[in-house]
C-alpha cells in the first residue's frame, strides 16, 4: 500500500458523498471521493491529519503530462527501480513526496519504453484513494 501523510485542505459534500482534498506538501494535493460526510466521519474536517492510502496496482503510469485525462491525482517522478515479471512489473517512482510503487503490465512497460531514470507521471483516480486516521 502506498501511504502518504497530509492534512485535509478542502471538503465538498453532496448528500452522502464527499470530495476531500488532502495536502501532502506545498505543491501536491490529493483528491479522493468517499461515501462519508463530516457528519458520519469525525476526521472529515479541515486541518485533520490523515494518511492517504492507495494500492500499487491502482497507479497509472504515463510518460507525458496530458491534461486530457479524467484522472485527477498526478505526480511527476523518476523511475528509480524496475523489477520485471512475466506479466506484471513493479516500478518504484521517486517523487517530491517520496517513493510511489506501481504495479503495471510488463507489456505496458515495454510499449512505453520505460527504463530506470525515465521521467514519468504517476496517476491515481479519486475513487481509488482511501483515508486512514
Amino acid at each position: 500500500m502506498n501511504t502518504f501523510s497530509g492534512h485535509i485542505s478542502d471538503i465538498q459534500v453532496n448528500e452522502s458523498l464527499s470530495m476531500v482534498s488532502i495536502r501532502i506538501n506545498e505543491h501536491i494535493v490529493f483528491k479522493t471521493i468517499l461515501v462519508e460526510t463530516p457528519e458520519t466521519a469525525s476526521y472529515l474536517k479541515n486541518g485533520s491529519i490523515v494518511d492517504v492510502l492507495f494500492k500499487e496496482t491502482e497507479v497509472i503510469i504515463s510518460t507525458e503530462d496530458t491534461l486530457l485525462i479524467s484522472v485527477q491525482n498526478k505526480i511527476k517522478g523518476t523511475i528509480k527501480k524496475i523489477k520485471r515479471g512475466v506479466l506484471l512489473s513493479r516500478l518504484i517512482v521517486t517523487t517530491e513526496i517520496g517513493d510511489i510503487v506501481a504495479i503495471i503490465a510488463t507489456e505496458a512497460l515495454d510499449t512505453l519504453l520505460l527504463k530506470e531514470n525515465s521521467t514519468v507521471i504517476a496517476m491515481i483516480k479519486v475513487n481509488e484513494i482511501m483515508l486512514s486516521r
Partner: protein
Amino acid sequence: MIEADIHKTLSTANGKMLLDIQLSIEKGEFVTLYGSSGAGKTSTLRILAGLLSADEGKIAVDNTIWLDTVKKINYTPQQRKIGYVFQDYALFPNMTVRKNLEFALEKGQDKSIIEELITIVELKELENRKPKTLSGGQQQRVALARALVRKPKVLLLDEPLSALDITMRAKLQDYILKVHREYELTTILVSHDIGEIIKMSDKIYCLEDGKIDKEGNPISIFTNDKLSGKFQFTGEVIAIKQEEVVYIVTVLIGNNVVKIIAQESEIINLGIGDKVVVASKAFNPVLLKIGK
C-alpha cells in the same frame, strides 16, 4: 434475560486479579466473551454456572435469582438449568454416544429429548459408538447434545471449537447456531476466533484484567472504523504465495475464501492464521444479481 454483577478476587500467575464483571444479556441473544488468556472469561462462565463461587454478586435469569450474596441465595449448578460445553468434550469413555446423552437425563425426565437431539445434531449413525472411536468434531457434537438434554435456558460454551480444524469448526458453528435458535437459548461463548465471533454473536464483551473493556456489536468492535473504506471484512490468512512481483494472500472470510494481491511490505509481518481486515472502497466492487 441475564443480569449479572460479579466480583471475585482471583489468584493468577501474575498475582491477584479482581474480577469485576457486569453483564446484561437479552433472552435469545448470542453473546461472546473475548479477551486474552487470564482476562477472566472462563472464571466468569464458571461463576454463572455455579461451578465457582463469587465473593460478592448477583445473578438473575428471567426474574429468578440464581445468586445473591447479600440475601445468601446460591443455586447449585443443577438448579441453574444451564448447558455447559468444555473445550475437551468431557465425555464418558466407557459409554456409547446414546448412553452419554441418557446419563444426563434428570430423574423421571421424558426420554424423547434424546431422540430429538440425536436427530438435530445428526448423531444417528454414531449413537452406538464409543467416544474414542469418534473424531474431535463428532465428540464435540455429542458434548453439545449432552449439554442440551436437560433443556437448559442458558448454554455456556468455553472455547468449544478451539481444538478443531477449520472445516470442522465451521460445521460445529452451524450446529451451535441451529440449536441456539431451535431451543431459543441464551448462549454465552468464550472464543478467540474473530471470524467465529462475527459469524455467531449478536454482542461481544471484551475482557481485560478482569474487567469489561468494551462491549457492542462484533463488527463495529473488530472492523477498523478509522479507515474510510466502506467494503470491510475481518478474516483469517490461510495462504500467502509469491507470484511474479506480487504476493497472493488467501483470506477466509466467514465461509468464503477471497484472494488479495499484496506487496512485500504488507505481508512482512503476516503469517498463516493471522486476523486481517480486508478493505476496499465502496466504488470498486460490482454487484451481480443471483437467480431469477
